[in-house]
């Protein structure tokens, strides 16, 4: 075959190369087999890491939908709160523009209610103090 086209010199060198690479320590292959089987056995007996399967794997799409819904709802509520705040600010602006007579009349009408609330607050505070002293 192809060897015929090779120089004798190269053939010789290749034979020496083979002899060199075929050198192995005595009993090497027996030892190799023992070591390999030992490795394989220890790998087989080693506790295998269990596959982690998420409990929610099947419900994933529902969870995603729920979190989207939550995000939308939260956003909506937040937006509404902002709007409410804006309305009350508007109301405050409107009160400022009211004539003084209207405001005074409102205060006079509600003064009695405010006084009653104030007196009952003082009374309950006094009762608490006397209880502590006794």
């Amino acid at each position, binding site marked *: 075959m*192809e*060897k015929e*086209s*090779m*120089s004798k*010199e*190269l053939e010789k*060198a*290749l034979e*020496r*190369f*083979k002899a060199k*690479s*075929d050198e*192995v320590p005595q009993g090497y*292959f027996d030892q*190799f*087999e023992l*070591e*390999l*089987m030992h*490795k*394989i056995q220890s*790998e087989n007996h080693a506790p295998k890491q269990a596959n982690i399967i998420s409990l929610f794997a099947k419900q994933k799409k529902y969870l995603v939908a729920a979190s989207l819904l939550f995000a939308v709802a939260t956003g909506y509520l937040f937006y509404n709160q902002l709007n409410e705040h804006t309305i009350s600010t508007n109301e405050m602006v409107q009160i400022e523009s009211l004539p003084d007579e209207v405001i005074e009349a409102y205060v006079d009408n509600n003064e009695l209610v405010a006084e009653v609330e104030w007196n009952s607050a003082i009374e309950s505070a006094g009762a608490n103090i006397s209880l502590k002293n006794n």
Partner: protein
Amino acid sequence: MTDQALITQFQNGDSKEGAFTQLLKRHKEPVFFQIKKMVLEHADADDIAQAVWIKVWNKLDGFKQESAFSTWLFRVAYNETLNFIAQKKRIQGQTKQNQLEQEMEHPSTQNGLNETAIQIKLERAIAELPEKQRFVFMLRYYEAYDYEKIASITGTTVGGAKANYHQAVKKMTELIQNT
């Protein structure tokens, strides 16, 4: 018992270790020597051969026997060897090449024999061959594998395997003649 029967035994789970050990006993030497001719260092060849057989143990269940076991085994060895060489090249750079060049410049340190100089040149030439070319050459020259089988192992065409072999011979001849 044939390789096929042993593989079937392994795949059926009947005495897995027994079947594997038989395959190992039959094929461990040619695989090891092929790897050693590629990497030259005994320790490296030992590491690769261990990795090859562990892979065989892990993958044999999925082997469909569409090719001979030895073809599949040498393909595993080929891939492992190439991965190892690439990894070593990244780590060591050109250290080995420099060593060979130094030996080339001072052949007298090797007993002053012309034969030794030729041998060093040959080893250098082998080391310089592209990995695929080297693997093809070793399988053809030393194992006398036919080109179809070599092509199947190295994932090339028959023509490609032939070209690889002849290029390897040409390169080595040139280096030897320039001694």
